[in-house]
């Protein structure tokens, strides 16, 4: 029976953790079995994980409210790890699915040099929408999906913060 629901960026994984002596854990996550050994259980735990014939390593630490930070392969991950109750099953079909948001955001803070689409215009994936000046470069922000422009939240000359919504497409 799965005993954890792990969430990150709108995705959910379900996992069953079996603990064994000497820090060895066997985790069945979706369809894969992942083994890891806890080498050190300090403030930031250290793990070794056999992978594709060699070893890889991870560090982890628990935060408040069920959040767990994991660092592996040079990247940080922040998960929400919630134990599943006895009869609870995770929602099917959500794991691994990536929903492409129609909200086009500024990837870094900068200034809008040019708005290249009009309200109501039909766009395809890759259509240039906005020219954003940041870090001395003119960055072309393009449509992540096809659809129609239903909202333009900025105009030329405006300064925007990171993650600010620039354009919305549905």
């Amino acid at each position, binding site marked *: 029976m799965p005993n954890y629901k792990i969430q990150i960026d709108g995705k959910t994984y379900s996992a069953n953790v079996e603990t064994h002596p000497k820090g060895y854990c066997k985790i069945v996550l*979706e369809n894969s079995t992942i083994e890891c050994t806890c080498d050190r259980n300090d403030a*930031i735990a250290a793990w070794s994980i056999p992978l594709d014939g060699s070893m890889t390593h991870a560090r982890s630490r628990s935060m408040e409210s069920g959040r767990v930070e994991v660092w592996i392969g040079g990247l940080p991950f922040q998960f929400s790890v919630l134990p599943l109750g006895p009869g609870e099953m995770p929602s099917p079909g959500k794991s691994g699915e990536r929903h492409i948001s129609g909200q086009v955001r500024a990837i870094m803070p900068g200034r809008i040099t040019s708005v290249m689409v009009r309200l109501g215009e039909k766009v395809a994936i890759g259509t240039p929408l906005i020219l954003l000046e940041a870090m001395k470069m003119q960055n072309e922000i393009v449509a992540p999906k096809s659809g129609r422009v239903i909202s333009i939240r900025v105009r030329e000359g405006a300064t925007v913060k990171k993650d600010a919504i620039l354009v919305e497409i549905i």
Partner: protein
Amino acid sequence: MTLKILIANRGEIALRIIRACRKLLIKTVLIYSDADQNSLPLAYADERYAIGGVTPVESYLNIGKIIQAATETGCDGIHPGYGFLSEDAAFVKTCEEEHITFIGPSHNSLAKLANKLSARTCMQNAGVPIIPGSDEALRDEEEAIAVADKIGYPVILKAVYGGGGRGMRIANDSNDVRRYFRITKMEATTSFGRDAVYLEKKLVEPRHIEIQALAEKQNKILILGERECSIQRRYQKLVEEAPSTAVSESLKEKLSRATVKGLDAAAYTNAGTVEFLLEPTGQFYFLEVNKRLQVEHNVTELTTGIDIVEEQIKVAFESISNLAQNEIKVDGWAINCRINAEDPRRDFTPSPGTVIHYHPPSGPGIRVDSALYSGHFVPEYYDSLILKLSTWGRHRREAIERMKGALDELEIIGIPTTIPLHQTVMQDEHFISGQFNTTYLNTLTPKLNQRLEQLEKIAAAVAAANRTVKPPQDKHKISHRSFWRGTRRFHHVNN
């Protein structure tokens, strides 16, 4: 009397220069901005000098403040590192006027290579092949289109006063030229202060090969070998090697001769690198001269045993080096990975932040150049390069295997890094075969994404395991048996 040198730079290269100076019993003065008050190299400089400000313009590009620092502390010379003022003619001139030895080329020799157009002219006159392109700055879109039509598409619009792979746009047809001409001019102004733009033909799948040279003042130019720098993302190098699988002895001879001819024609002095683009046919063309110490100088040091920073200092003060051409030997193979504070999941957006824990790899054939430490806050104002991981092996395969292990041992915890990209490269058959060119990294996106997905899955598993091993502390909870008690079944209170 002991020499004293001011280091007009920061981060890993400041530490590199300090290390060379310590070895040579030269005293060091390190300038620092407000953002670098807690930087690691400060601890190893003999003196530190606050120049204030945070942005490069306020600090590391401020000639006035730097010269003041050097004169107040009684420095004999200034080492500019790379980037910042390392190729700034006005800075070199000011040093010369203030009788401070600039550790790099003379102002005279910089003049001929002052910008990309003058460098092209200098090289062409010296008989070095150059990429077909415009001879002058382009007046407007119409002229750009006319030149591009004549040379043939695709072309690359480039900033005349640019370099380092920045301020460039590819144009596949006249519409692109029209679309990007204005943008390229804007970027040229923001990045380089002048909007002059020219264009060059875009070569088909070339390799980027460069030659490291050291020019002594009597125009004796030593060649320290080639470097392979084709693995680039948006023209920024990410993995470099010495030597190159694409360069035979005879090609090396030709490239070396072209380098000597070109640098000689420019009356160049001190360390410098001439970059070439190499077509599959074996034809090579001059790309750019780097009139400074380069980021990837470490791979040349690993294969030749030469301390390039030491040689720079010696040539600057004494006009001679410790080297003779017939003694320079390339032994084994070295690879360098540039670890940047960038998020590969978000299009390599820079990711400043705190590195809460840092642990570098070590062991045979491993070299780390970095100013990181546990608790270091990577500032947002400067380059995203935070660590250079290089390996040496008796042959290329050994260097690669050592790199894989080193990338796994390296712990930079707290911020996203480019490590997953480097691991993907090191395990990719095309890289391992040595058959790749400057388009290579673009082809790796599917494999990189696969790795990113895999990392997320394993991380999720570890998160669940962590939760089991370290359940959240709750004041109502009974303390659980230690996980390390081993034989008995782990017991925790469900919440």
